[in-house]
């Protein structure tokens, strides 16, 4: 069942472009049926899961490697999967209207559905390898979606940046998961969770934690990797809403929550998460306040939300985990709504600059209402679901043990106050301020456009008003999965006069103060921009450095000079063969008996001197003559040692070679000394080394020679089977006739090439 849920998205992605072409007006609604179906299918299992059940399924994939396509549905993965498919449904419908008329809309649907399937795979996968593969697929589809408008350079750059940052994190994650599998002796998440395995004491533990954090922090845009997320806003708005706020960036949070039972409980895990989360949370809220572009503002507030989730996971108490899960849902709902809202505003007015927007509520009442509902939930005001989330955050920091409690609470209040002020910038002025931009009315806001912003915003209100049911069905099982014990959670809007209520009041006061001065803060802080020392600049520097390294390496390895290549080849051969000879199995350097006849000695001396002459000769003709002497000497050796056929061939070929040389030689440039004496000396050393190596190699080979079965076969069968007395000839024309045919073909081609080159004349020669 789960495999179909996950893989059907990939299947539909393949046909989505065709659907778009056949039914251009209704494709969005039609394609949205799949995510809707997935949502319903998953929701039907909600009660089973709420009763403490888990659904695990396994399909063999690469059994030899221990890789199975296994799926694991428990409270945590169900919650994530429902958010993905539910918001996915709205996004697909919205895209149809938002990008209507775009020439590549069909391709966009394909990317979007493939992404949704990958994301579902990630949260439902039960095998560590499968987790990694789906993780990388989400990075890949994110790349395609951010770069969807690939004609713009900014979009391409942002897409590459997101891919590189999350891709490098993904590689670290893979190493972490492999180490985890080795340490836990299993590739199956379900099995590890069932065994209540905790790796805290394992020698690999620290390495696993660092590698998994590298993956999770890059994916979930934690400081200092947060810079890619605002850049990713170059993608179309539905993409920003779906990937870069509601789902993909939460992949890291999911992973951390999922692995908390296995890896959590140590200072390395909890404190790192708490610290990184706190910094990201405050930095995100602060940077969010400074933005004037609606989407960038939302992007930084998403950074804040992701930081908050990591922060709560790091605190790790029961209240903190409940807070994290509640906030996760709240954030997904209001952020999807607000992003889609920003898309409609951009669509209707042509700008996303808050300084140029104002008084839109009158013209876009439905969108305006959605913005207000979602904004109030984001600000954490009663009676919205976001309020419950924020109260839980305060409760978690307030109740945390030790002296850090005050510090944590201060951090949470500061981040929230900044965020609420940013929400004010986002909602109040554009919709209720003085009228600035009037929609041109060319694009009517149909149901496809208002459904996406409105539905999640209304859900945020409903859940806040009736917190009991979602708490029981969705929150409790998810928290139980993270804490690895059954839970009974009751959420309520009103807890009486608690310190948390006081903190909320304080936050609102602070936020009001900040909001009143936000324009001044924004302009004033522009002077303190990090610029050249920020993490984004660090990314630029490393990218450029990588390019330079690649360029240098290419120039170094590919110099374009033939003698460099030859030198590299020969030195590498000498080094490798020499190393093997010295370090390999002990070999016998046999010195054969010296039964040299006089004429043989003279012949050898002649060949060697002729070789020296070829090297030293200044005239081309004498070099060729010396070369001929070597060839004829070789032929004489062949005669001496029982190879008359070889000798004949060698005589003929050598003669032809010399004739050919003499024909061509005067067309080639004369000798010229180009190399420096040092280069000649170096070449000489290399050449002598190569010669010595070959002599040694031959002597070693002589020592290990054994009779060849093939030779015996040929000697025995040459006459009986092939009726020939000259064994060499029989081998060539009979036993190995196909080889000879190939050889003839090569010769023919070479001959045709020679003829063409000689006959072919460039036009100016005529």
């Amino acid at each position: 069942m789960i495999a179909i849920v996950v893989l059907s998205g990939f299947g539909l992605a393949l046909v989505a472009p065709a659907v778009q072409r056949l039914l251009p007006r209704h494709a969005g609604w039609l394609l949205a049926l799949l995510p809707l179906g997935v949502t319903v299918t998953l929701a039907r299992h909600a009660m089973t899961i709420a009763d403490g059940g888990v659904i695990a399924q396994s399909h063999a994939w690469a059994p030899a490697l221990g890789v199975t396509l296994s799926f694991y549905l428990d409270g945590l993965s169900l919650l994530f999967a429902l958010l993905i498919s539910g918001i996915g449904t709205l996004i697909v419908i919205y895209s149809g209207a938002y990008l209507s008329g775009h020439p590549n809309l069909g391709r966009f649907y394909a990317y979007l559905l493939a992404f949704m399937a990958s994301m579902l795979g990630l949260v439902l996968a039960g095998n560590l390898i499968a987790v990694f593969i789906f993780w990388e697929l989400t990075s890949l589809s994110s790349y395609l979606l951010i770069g969807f408008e690939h004609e713009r350079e900014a979009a391409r750059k942002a897409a590459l940046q997101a891919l590189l940052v999350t891709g490098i994190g993904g590689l670290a994650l893979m190493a972490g998961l492999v180490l985890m599998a080795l340490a836990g002796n299993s590739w199956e998440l379900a099995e590890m969770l069932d065994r209540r395995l905790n790796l805290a004491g394992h020698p690999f533990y620290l390495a696993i934690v660092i590698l998994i954090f590298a993956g999770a922090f890059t994916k979930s845009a934690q400081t200092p990797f947060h810079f890619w997320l605002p850049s990713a806003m170059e993608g179309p708005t539905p993409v920003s809403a779906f990937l870069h706020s509601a789902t993909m960036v939460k992949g890291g949070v999911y992973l951390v929550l999922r692995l908390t039972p296995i890896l959590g409980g140590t200072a390395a895990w909890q404190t790192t998460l708490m610290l990184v989360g706190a910094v990201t949370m405050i930095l995100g809220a602060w940077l969010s306040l400074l933005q004037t572009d609606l989407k960038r503002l939302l992007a930084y507030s998403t950074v804040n939300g992701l930081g908050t989730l990591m922060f709560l996971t790091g605190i790790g108490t029961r209240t903190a985990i409940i807070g994290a899960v509640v906030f996760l849902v709240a954030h997904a709902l209001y952020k999807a709504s607000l992003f889609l809202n920003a898309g409609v505003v951009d669509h209707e007015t042509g700008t996303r600059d808050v300084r140029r927007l104002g008084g839109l509520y009158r013209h876009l009442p439905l969108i305006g209402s959605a913005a207000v509902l979602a904004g109030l939930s984001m600000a954490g005001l009663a009676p919205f679901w976001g309020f419950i989330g924020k109260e839980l955050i305060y409760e978690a920091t307030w109740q945390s043990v030790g002296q850090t409690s005050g510090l944590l609470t201060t951090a949470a209040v500061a981040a929230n106050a900044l965020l609420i002020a940013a929400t004010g910038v986002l909602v109040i002025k554009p919709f209720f301020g003085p009228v600035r931009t009037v929609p041109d009315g060319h694009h009517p806001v149909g149901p496809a456009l208002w459904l996406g912003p409105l539905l999640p915003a209304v859900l945020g209100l409903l859940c806040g008003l009736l917190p009991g049911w979602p708490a029981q069905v969705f929150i409790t099982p998810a928290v139980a999965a993270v804490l690895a014990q059954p839970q009974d959670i009751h959420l309520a809007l009103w807890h009486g006069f608690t310190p948390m209520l006081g903190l909320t009041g304080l936050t609102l006061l602070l936020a009001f103060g900040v909001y009143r001065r936000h324009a001044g803060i924004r302009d004033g802080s522009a002077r303190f921009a990090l610029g050249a020392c920020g993490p984004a600049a660090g990314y630029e520097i490393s990218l450029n450095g990588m390019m330079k390294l690649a360029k240098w390496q290419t120039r170094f390895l590919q110099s374009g000079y033939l003698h460099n290549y030859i030198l590299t080849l020969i030195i590498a051969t000498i080094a490798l063969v020499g190393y093997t000879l010295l370090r390999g199995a002990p070999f016998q350097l046999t010195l054969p008996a010296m039964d040299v006849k006089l004429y043989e000695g003279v012949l050898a001396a002649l060949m060697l001197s002729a070789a020296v002459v070829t090297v030293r000769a200044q005239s081309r003709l004498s070099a060729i003559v010396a070369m001929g002497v070597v060839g004829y000497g070789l032929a004489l050796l062949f005669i001496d040692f029982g190879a008359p056929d070889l000798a004949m061939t060698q005589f003929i070929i050598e003669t032809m070679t010399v004739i050919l040389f003499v024909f061509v030689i005067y067309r080639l440039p004369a000798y010229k000394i180009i190399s420096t004496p040092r280069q000649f000396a170096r070449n000489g050393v290399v050449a002598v080394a190569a010669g010595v190596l070959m002599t040694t190699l031959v002597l070693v080979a002589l020592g290990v020679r054994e009779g060849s079965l093939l030779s015996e076969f040929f000697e025995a069968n040459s006459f009986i089977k092939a009726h020939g007395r000259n064994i060499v000839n029989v081998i060539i024309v009979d036993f190995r006739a196909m080889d000879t045919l190939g050889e003839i073909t090569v010769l023919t081609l070479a001959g045709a090439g020679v003829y063409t080159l000689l006959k072919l004349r460039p036009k100016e020669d005529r």
Partner: protein
Amino acid sequence: MELVAAIVVGGLFGAAVYLLLWRTPVKLIIGLVLLSNAINLLIFLAAGLTRGKPPIIPEGSLRAAQAVADPLPQALILTAIVISFGVLAFTLVLFSRTFKTLAATHLDEMKTTDS
């Protein structure tokens, strides 16, 4: 005799390598010829040398006498000689055409143009 032949192989190989590293085309091609000669001799030698007993089945006999020269490396070398001649002829003509077309005087100048 194997020792002497092995030294000849090494000498030819060294000379060939030295010539290949030269930047004048004629030397390079002569280097190629010496290299193929050296390798042929190496194969011949690696199978062991047998004086004056070619692998031929005498009249009236069904198989070769004992201890004739090994026919297999001979067949290999026969192929190699012919093939290397084909390659050499092609290289030689290609070089002469290229140098004429580019008006280059040595190998390093050949990297400067693609046209």
